[in-house]
């Protein structure tokens, strides 16, 4: 814009004409900028399931990658309230959120689930409650999920025994942190994933052998890609770009930052599970 105005100020002739041209240039530049911003589609990301907090890197890497496919950007959120407040009243967006969170807000926001993340080809995961001592009756629980999400899981997982175990929750950044908190004495129990426990078997077999699985939850879908119904058709190019990430080495690397290795479309049984979760 500076360049345009610079040329206009050097325009020979009438001062009034220069003024008019200058105004036109400013209006044009502002309009172009406004349209460019308005046309940008944002992927809003919040996961109640894992405390992914590498937001700066995540935004940078995803924005760089998505720009290749269109005017797209990622906007991560660290808390549920801000995330939900931000999408309210908007039409043109894509969401990345946990299946549990989707089931809580899909009706109010008229959302459609398009894809589910995969890990080792599986789109479902299981939450487990582990401890070093299988006779443990309570104590601090380490979890990488939000407190609301953790409580919801524990209630489902433990049913009548929930009150017995319902003790303080220590939110840690990652599932592997939750496991190590139990292993190294910072918590008595950990709510984590079966996948994280399998990883522990490879990286620290001695610690793995000390872990006892006390309870296992129902299988739930991994991260969900959802869109508002009104944007379902227009959002397809972006959904396709997300879906194809796994077939591109750079895209796979970005997916790794979400703890995923691919995306799969949902079949009717997935949708039913998701909506009755």
């Amino acid at each position, binding site marked *: 814009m500076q360049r345009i105005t610079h040329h206009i100020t050097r325009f020979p002739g009438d001062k009034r004409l220069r003024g008019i041209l200058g105004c036109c240039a400013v209006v044009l530049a502002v309009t172009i900028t406004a349209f460019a911003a308005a046309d940008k589609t944002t992927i809003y990301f919040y996961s109640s399931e894992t405390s992914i907090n590498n937001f700066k890197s995540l935004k940078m890497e995803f924005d760089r990658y998505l720009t290749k496919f269109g005017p797209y950007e990622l906007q991560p959120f660290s808390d549920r309230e801000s995330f939900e407040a931000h999408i309210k009243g908007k039409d043109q967006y894509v969401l990345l959120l946990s299946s549990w969170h989707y089931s809580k807000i899909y009706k109010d926001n008229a959302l459609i689930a398009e894809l589910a993340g995969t890990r080792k080809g599986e789109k479902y995961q299981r939450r487990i409650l582990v401890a070093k001592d299988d006779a443990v009756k309570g104590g601090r629980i380490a979890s990488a999920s939000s407190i609301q999400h953790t409580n919801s899981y524990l209630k489902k997982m433990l049913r009548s025994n929930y009150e017995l175990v319902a003790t303080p929750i220590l939110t*840690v950044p990652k599932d592997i942190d939750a496991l190590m908190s139990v292993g190294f004495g910072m918590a008595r129990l950990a709510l984590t994933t079966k996948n994280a426990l399998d990883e522990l078997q490879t990286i620290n077999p001695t610690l793995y052998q000390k872990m006892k699985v006390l309870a296992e939850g129902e299988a739930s879908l991994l991260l969900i890609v959802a869109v508002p119904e009104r944007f379902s058709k227009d959002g397809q190019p972006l959904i396709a770009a997300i879906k194809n990430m796994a077939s591109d080495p750079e895209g796979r690397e970005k997916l790794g930052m979400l703890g995923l*290795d691919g995306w799969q479309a949902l079949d009717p049984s997935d949708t039913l599970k998701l909506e009755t979760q």
Partner: protein
Amino acid sequence: MKLHRFTWLIAGLLLIYPGSLAADKEPKVLVINSDAGIEKYKVAQEEFTGTLSRPVRAINLDDPKWKIADVENLLYDEYPDLVYCIGSKAYLIAHRFISEKDIVFSSIVNWQRFPVTGKTYGVSVELHSGIQMTLFRYIFPKVKKIGVLYSTKYNSEWFKNTSTESKEMGIEIVGKSIAESKQSIDALRESLPAVDALWLIPDPLLMEDKDNLMKLFKACESRKLPVFSYHDSFIDYGALLVVSVDAPTIGRQAAGIAAEILSDGTIDEKVQYPAGSHIILNLKKVKEYGLQYNEAALSAVNQIVE
């Protein structure tokens, strides 16, 4: 008329009295922050107050209005049931004036050098070495031999314990002890051919000479030897992987300890290791060195340098 007024007065007092009794029973919690201008200290305080869900009074020692005498007056006037001290300055003040009270600390380097009582609790500043090694393995599953330079004066016990733990994980720690900082380059040269990475630990002898530290990083760089370290600042020096403590988790952990103390619960460990990790990975260097890494572990990395 007089009798009527008196009845109202009594009724009013009866209404207020149980409330004031309840207010007296609410334990007083004070946070003393050594310097709230330091991001990690600020975050720990925010998470502590947010997690504890009780009224908390907080003071920042970096604020010029808080002279020692004023803090002393505050401590005796308030006489809190529990104090959360962030940083060593805060801890020393609380311990000096009200050591008879429950004190929870965090963000203190080498806390063992400070006086403690039976009512001292805390979260140490360094991750358990087993956690660090597990995370090294998580990102780089093929790493088998890790070199460590350490001084016998400060870290012989640490080295002994870590070596034992590493064997259980299938990692071999190749250690070289040094008596002075200058020996580190020679020690590195001796251990270099045998190791997959160098683990730079917070050994005071290694850290005392900045120039020597720079030489150490350069020597590793020239041989494409990855350096794993414990502090974010080493990324700028050329560290490939930094596994450090997650500051928000420290605040939440301290709040958990405080809540357990205030509810007369049992505390398993009075001074605990931090439960949360913060990982920085220099992916540019990983590719430059031609190293294989676990792509699935990238979700655990907080910051990627490219």
